[in-house]
């Protein structure tokens, strides 16, 4: 045991002397988490989208078109849309170069047609390289169309009056007869206020989880959700790099020389696996500290998370011990390890949200350590102890170790 610990301590010292590769592998998950957090965090309260760039072409320049343009000027809409009023030629040129999400064209004669209650059409030109934002503009315009249609119908008589005013010369207009008309309009406005202030029907939208629990997602929550996936992915890379010593020492003759000492193969194997395990835990600890300091990520009870991390690191050490017992040389090790890690990460949910994946991919994900580590971290954040993920990682880790040790003993004998 003493000799095992001496080899282990020597290995740890050796890796700490040249830590560049490990440091880079630790920077990557933090960098990726930062990038994802910055991009996908809610932009403003209640909005998950950046301001939508809209070009507005007013070919009508009448009362109704001004009302429509004004709708984009309401505070809530100002946060949602970044509107540029322009002429049609410039708008077409800009849309042809993809400089806005959409262009809204209000046709000539829009106000007069509306006052005549004739059907009118608003044109929305959508950016073909964008998949989501142009549709938001289209739906917003659809809603505006419904509202305008409603106003025109509700105040049909008044609208006709305004139309008549526009057609007649000012001097021939019967101003003295306008009093009662204004009175009627006032009554309608007062009646409308009953429905509009406050709105008689409103929506109270909320987001729910499968169990029905309410969620509100902050940037720190996003970091907390993304970081465990990234951390376990690069934990696998780091442990794999460390465990590659098993092969490289065999290749460059160090193993043969070490076994001329009173060191037994089982001690050497034990030291290598323990080295990968201990370094894995250390790496996770550094990532937890960095994630907490930089991103204010939350991990749930620290003791529980460390246990989960220790089990995941043990799994990784046992898995790569077995893999390195099966491959012939460093090249084979590199050729197999990286694809396996990336496949684990892709199916296990390190690279994308599990809920966004096809069902078959999620099923395959059950076979990966990433999935159980991510699930365990999520349970801890929800205040629950991750019994099942820990049991599965520990159980399968022990099984891998049981297969790895005899295989490695055969490869380690001189």
């Amino acid at each position, binding site marked *: 045991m003493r000799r095992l610990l001496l080899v282990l301590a020597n290995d740890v010292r050796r890796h700490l002397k040249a830590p560049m590769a490990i440091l880079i592998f630790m920077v990557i998950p933090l960098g990726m988490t930062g990038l994802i957090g910055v991009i996908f965090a809610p932009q403003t309260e209640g909005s998950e989208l950046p301001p939508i760039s809209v070009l507005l072409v007013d070919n009508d320049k009448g009362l109704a078109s001004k009302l429509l343009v004004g709708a984009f000027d309401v505070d809530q809409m100002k946060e949602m849309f970044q509107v540029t009023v322009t002429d049609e030629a410039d708008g077409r040129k800009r849309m042809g170069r993809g400089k806005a999400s959409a262009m809204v064209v209000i046709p000539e004669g829009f106000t007069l047609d509306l006052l005549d209650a004739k059907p009118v*059409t608003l044109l929305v030109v959508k950016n073909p390289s964008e998949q989501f934002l142009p549709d938001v503009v289209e739906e917003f315009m659809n809603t505006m169309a419904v509202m305008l249609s409603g106003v025109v119908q509700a105040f049909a008589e008044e609208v006709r009056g305004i139309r008549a005013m526009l057609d007649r010369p000012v001097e021939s207009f019967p101003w003295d007869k306008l009093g009662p008309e204004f009175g009627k309009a006032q009554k309608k406005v007062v009646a409308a206020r009953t429905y509009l202030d406050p709105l008689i029907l409103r929506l109270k939208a909320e987001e729910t*989880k499968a169990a029905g629990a309410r969620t509100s997602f902050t940037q720190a929550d996003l970091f907390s959700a993304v970081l465990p996936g990234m951390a376990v992915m690069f934990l696998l890379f780091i442990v794999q790099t460390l465990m590659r010593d098993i092969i490289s020492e065999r290749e460059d003759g160090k193993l043969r020389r070490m076994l001329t000492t009173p060191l037994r193969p089982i001690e050497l194997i034990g030291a290598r696996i323990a080295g990968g395990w201990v370094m894995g835990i250390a790496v996770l600890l550094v990532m937890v500290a960095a994630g907490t300091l930089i991103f204010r990520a939350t991990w749930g009870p620290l003791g529980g998370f460390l246990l989960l991390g220790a089990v995941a690191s043990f799994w990784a050490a046992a898995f790569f011990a077995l893999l390195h017992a099966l491959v012939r040389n460093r090249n084979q090790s590199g050729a197999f390890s990286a694809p396996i890690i990336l496949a684990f990460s892709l199916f296990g949910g390190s690279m994308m949200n599990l809920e966004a994946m096809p069902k078959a991919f999620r099923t395959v994900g059950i076979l990966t350590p990433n999935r159980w580590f991510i699930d365990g971290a999520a349970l801890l954040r929800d205040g629950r102890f991750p019994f099942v993920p820990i049991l599965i990682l520990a159980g399968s880790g022990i099984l891998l170790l049981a297969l790895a040790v005899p295989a490695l003993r055969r490869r380690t004998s001189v």
Partner: protein
Amino acid sequence: MAGNDLRIMVGDKAFFFWTLAFPIFFIVMFGLLYKSGENAPAVAELTVVNLDEGRWGGYFVEKIKAPNLTIKTADAEPAEYSRLLVLPADFSARIEARRDQALAFKKRSGASVKAAARVETRLYQSIARVISELVLYGEGDLTKFLDGHPEFRDIVRVESRFPEKTVTVVPSGFDHSIPGTTIQFIMMMVIIYGGVTVLEDRKKGVLARMLFSPLSTADVFQAKLLGRWSLGFLQALMLIVVGKIFFGLNLGSLPLALLVIAVFALAMAALSVFIGSLCTKEDMIIGLAVLLANMFAGLGGCWWPNEIVPPAVRRVAMISPAHWAMDALHKLRFFQGGFADILPNLGVLLALSVVLAVVAGRAFKIRD
């Protein structure tokens, strides 16, 4: 020498996995995700729990109905739903008493955001329709409203289309995922393979032995650069051919798309020689390659549509070579752009290639 380098790299058994099989796996994965972004539920689903004791609940549900919307009814809140609207027991009573009310609309997290937005918009439109009818009805007795009232008419309509001389049909998910994956894997593979082989050749003394032939250090450097450029371009060609055959990939102008990829691969080739000359360990090169390729790909729009990225990040993205390549490929594919449209992008990528080649040339070492 460049041909020999390429032959050695292609001869590696893992080469086809990394340059072809693995990117295709990514293409399929992201292609399916993009497709579902377009949106998986062509018909969005809404579950309505109508507890209303009067007639207005049914009337409101009729107003919500639309061709792109499926309405399911339930007596109580079900365990499984994507979007749920609850009409309370006093829904009619409150309307008839002209008292305001807020309707609970629940969206399940993880369900399609686009479908949720479509349903929510439809609900707002239905509310606007009902309120318009109420205003039109005036101060009359609302208990008799449903026995006869003026119907809402859509006087204002909205028509949508793409700009002239661009696409006529919505591009497929693979038209988004193949260029992004190609650009990302050119970065990753050229830097890893290119960098590691420069390091190995130097460490094993291969570069030093080459100088015994009638070659100068500059010749060796140029050959290394050309070899790595060929690797990147070959990889792109393979992915494009696979994309054309199996996924009906459309890149707009193929020669111009290849030109963009060629210039981009040149910049990555120079970066790989630079990193290979600078690093002393293989693990460092792999780590740097993964770091740079992932950061550049994320910033450059290879993974997600750039439209959802905040404006500040979009400005930062200009430091990513992938941004310039992806932007050029978007101009070609989605806007049917020509040479003049992508000239600024080519200029930036070419300038970057020259700068990186100069820096790599200075860092290039024959011996450690």
